[in-house]
Structures are given as C-alpha cells and as structure tokens.
C-alpha cells in the first residue's frame, strides 16, 4: 500500500468571509463551520475561536485535536467508518494543511482535562502550542446524556477538520512524501536481508472518555489486528478519550503517529518495517490476557524480529504493557517499550504500576507528576473552572496573580507515549 502525503504549510489563521488557503494563511468562515456543526441536533451552540502560537491564550478543557486533511486520490475518505463511509484507506494521495489544527473543547464531565497554552512555560510541553488552532467551543442540548454528548463533540471535531481539509483539495503541495508498505511476502522479497520490524500500538479502550475507534469500531471490541501503517495517516484510528490528557493520543497524533513516521524514516535501510499491529487495553482481565496472547501471536506469525510497543495511559495499561512485553519476548522477539511515568511530584516513587524483567529497553516520555507553574493568560478559550479539579490540578492551585500550578499530566500531549514529544526522565 502506497500513500503520498502532500503538505500545504500553514503559518497563520484568520477569520474571513470565505474559507480558503492563500499564501500559507488559513482563512476561516466561522459561520460555515457553525452551520455544519449545528446540523447535529445534539449540539445546541458552537463558537469558533482562533489561537496562534505565541499568543497569551489558554485552551481548556481540550477534548480532541484533529488535523485538517483531505483524500484527493485513492479509495475512501478521511476518518472512514465515522464521518466517511467505511472503506479501507491508506493509499493514493492525501493533502494536509500542515501547521493547522482543529481543537474541540466543551465540558462533558465535571472533572475534564486538557490544557493547551499558546505561550509561557506550559507551551513547550504541548505540541499544539505550535499549531494554528481553530477552536470549537461546543455546548450540548439540555438533557443530553454524557455518552451522546461525547459522540457529538467527537464528530464535530472530525467534521470541522474535514471541512477545512477540503480547502486543500485543489492546492499544489509544497512538499510530497511517499510512504509505502508492501504486502508481507513482497516486502520480504524486496528487503530480504534486513531485520523484520513491526509496531504494536496499544489503544485506550475502557469506557466513557476512555475509548478509541478503529474504522468506527469501538476498540474494546476488537481483537488485535494488522494495519498497513499508512492507514492511520488517513484517519483509520480516532480518539474518544481525553482523561489525564498528557498521555492520551488525540486524533491528530494518530494521523501523525510519530513511531510510524520514524520507522518509515529508516525502513529499507536499517530494517524492513513490515506491519503495524493494534491492540487494546480493556478493563476485563481475561480480555487483557487474550489481547496480549494475540499480539504476541501476530508478531510471531509475521516473522517479526523486533517491535516497538507503545502504551496509552497509566495504571491498568501498565499490566497490558508488561503482558505484551513478556509474551513478545518469550517468542524470541526483541521489544522496545514506550511509556510515561508517574513517579510522584518529587520523582521518588515507582513509576509504573507493573513491571517485568523482560522490559529491558524502555523509552520514557517523562514524569507526568512534575509540577509546573503556568502564567495567567489574557484570554481563556473554554473555561478555567475545571483546571482546579483536573488530575494534574492542585486543590488551591489558582494563585492571586492569575498563575496556576498543575502537574504536567493536565497538559494535552505533555508525556505522549507514542513519543510525539521530546520530554523524558532519568
């Protein structure tokens, strides 16, 4: 499967009467987006705001971040199984408004999380301080259940990103990157002398605000399966989770999965990147056993010699991570694990809730309990009312001068366990 990504760089975002892209500026007609989103009767109101890098702006509570993309060639559309019909994606050509993002915000539960600061000390911890953000503030119809509310907000973000992505359809990309994964046997012929490598991505799959969707299927109901890595670039995996925002993958991160990209970067040179395997992180212990069995089985079946395993979340997923590590290692396959840490505010606690001796090669995305002081911002998009009660928030964290103290676990993407960021710990 072969996919071309055509990148149209965006370095500014502005409101305008007509939505369009000109000279790297994304012009947004807010009324169009509102009309589109309000077609969903579950949404009672929507506001659109813009947030640019360097501005004194805080966006919170963040629900999801989505990159505007459009399929210009090849089967299927963006986010298949949700806002496009179900069709296997990952080939042809896709255009990307690189540097732009749709951010959704809105209270679904009273302890919601996710902070994006566009400037100040917090900005360096979130990748979305560097994107030109179109922010949707969404409110539900009265009496809407939390489940339906979550669905409505999730879909609104995807639709808005589709709408903006559509602006890129006829544009000429500044750069084009090609990614190709051959069917297994052909790949072996082409790269027969290179070690066979795969990527195991663990997906959060537990309940309300703890879910992930694969082609529209709730990931807790999947058995581990195989993807061509290019499928995720067309939105095969989308996020339905945002609790403890530091180590949850927004849809944007799935679209730009950094492990996929870094594996492609050395594919055909240092190894043969054969396939991507996705698995879940269910609450039910028998599911954990089954999924880790299957993950190891698929690794073996594909003849992999090495894999990278990425976790999503803390606590019970540590158990899945260690099961995967143990079972993959028992097959004689070399594994590198990617996780973050909860070592306490002073860094002295044991970082994970589980451990196994096979986990001898671990990349750390940092200690999520690290405390940080964020300056007050001129403008808050969404509401700061929840900052005090989020996982990372302190009880009396709002100081009189407007600064707030939080653990970095409140910051969207701060300790990305797919290694999207640069943070680590020793």
């Amino acid at each position: 499967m072969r996919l071309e990504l055509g990148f149209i760089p965006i370095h500014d975002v502005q409101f305008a009467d007509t939505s369009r892209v000109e000279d790297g500026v994304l012009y947004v007609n807010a009324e169009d987006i509102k009309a589109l989103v309000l077609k969903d009767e579950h949404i009672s109101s929507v506001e659109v705001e813009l947030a640019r890098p360097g501005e004194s702006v805080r966006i919170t509570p963040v629900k999801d971040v989505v990159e505007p993309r459009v399929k210009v060639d090849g089967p299927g559309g963006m986010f298949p199984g949700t806002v496009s019909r179900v069709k296997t994606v990952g080939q042809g050509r896709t255009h990307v408004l690189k540097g732009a993002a749709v951010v959704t915000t809105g209270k679904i539960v009273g302890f919601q999380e996710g902070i994006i600061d566009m400037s100040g000390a917090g900005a360096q911890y979130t990748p979305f301080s560097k994107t030109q953000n179109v922010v949707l503030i969404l409110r539900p119809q009265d009496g809407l259940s939390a489940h339906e509310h979550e669905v409505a907000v999730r879909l609104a973000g995807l639709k808005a990103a589709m709408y903006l992505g559509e602006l890129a359809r006829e544009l000429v990309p500044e750069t084009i990157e090609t990614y190709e994964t051959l069917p297994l046997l052909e790949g072996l012929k082409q790269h027969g002398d290179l070690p066979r490598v795969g990527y195991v991505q663990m997906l959060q799959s537990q309940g309300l605000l703890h879910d992930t969707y694969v082609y529209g299927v709730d990931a807790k109901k999947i058995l581990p399966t195989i993807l061509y890595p290019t499928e995720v670039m067309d939105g095969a995996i989308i996020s339905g989770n945002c609790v403890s925002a530091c180590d949850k993958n927004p849809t944007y991160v799935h679209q730009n999965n950094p492990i996929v990209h870094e594996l492609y970067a050395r594919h055909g040179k240092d190894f043969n990147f054969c396939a991507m395997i996705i698995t879940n992180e269910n609450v039910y212990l028998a599911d954990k056993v089954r999924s880790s069995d299957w993950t190891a089985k698929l690794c073996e079946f594909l003849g992999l010699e090495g894999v990278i395993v990425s976790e999503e979340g803390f606590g019970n997923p540590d158990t899945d991570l260690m099961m995967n590590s143990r079972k993959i290692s028992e097959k004689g396959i070399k594994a590198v694990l990617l996780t973050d840490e909860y070592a306490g505010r002073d860094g002295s606690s044991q970082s994970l809730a589980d451990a196994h001796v096979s986990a001898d090669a671990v990349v750390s995305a940092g200690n999520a309990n690290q405390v940080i002081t964020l300056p007050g911002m001129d403008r808050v998009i969404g509401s700061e009312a929840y900052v005090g009660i989020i996982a990372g928030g302190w009880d009396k964290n709002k100081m009189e001068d407007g600064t707030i103290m939080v653990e970095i676990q409140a910051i969207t993407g701060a300790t990305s366990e797919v290694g999207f960021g640069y943070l680590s710990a020793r």
Partner: protein
Amino acid sequence: MLVVSNNPLVQSHLIREPQHTVAYAPVSFRDLLILVRDKVHQGHVLLTHPLSGSVKPNETLYKSIGMTQQPQAGLCVDSLLLIEEAILAHDRFPPRTREVTPQMDADFQLVDWTLLQSALLSDFARTRGASAGA
C-alpha cells in the same frame, strides 16, 4: 460476577440484574481496595483490573471491581499481586482535599459505571459462551 463497589449508581443499575451480585460498601476508594484484597484472600478471583480508567485514585471517589461470584479453593496469587500493587499505586498519589460538586460527584459515578459496563459486556460474552459450550 461479584461487583465490589462504593458507587451507588452501580448498585442501582445492577440491583435489577440477578446474574450479578453487588457487594456495595459506602467506603473510601482505598478501603474499597482493602475490601477487595480481603475477598481475594477468601478465594475470590479478580475479573477486572483494580486500576481501571485514567481518573487517578486520588481524584475519583468511586471504584467498582469485578470478581468471581464464588470463591475458589485456595488463593489466586495473580489476583493478590494485582490488588497489592493497586493499593501501592493508590498510596503514591497524595491525598487531596477539595470540594466535590454534586455534578462532579455524579460524573465520577457515571465514568466508573461505564468502566464497569465494559467489563460486564466482556463477562457476559465469556460466561454465556462457557455455558453454551457445556
């Protein structure tokens, strides 16, 4: 499934479902974990992970944990290690004192219930499958 829970919402849902037993105890999160540990010592086997969900142990007030209805003879060591680790993990999060609004309280209950629901679905598939095979 035996559900050990301090979540009134879980109790109100499951009371209508005779295939499940709820051991409801209006106790703290930590005391609930201890309760589960004691049941592990009595031979019950854990069916769900005690650290389900991403809401941190010092944040949510509610936890519901699934175990086998009947105790088995002897201790399930995997269950014991899991619950002991969960208690240790709980203790690593410093206690918080803060006001919980009625809305937040309801939301914590709701999220805990949905986490448990996902396990009930899995349990249904498993136990029904087992009886069909018998």
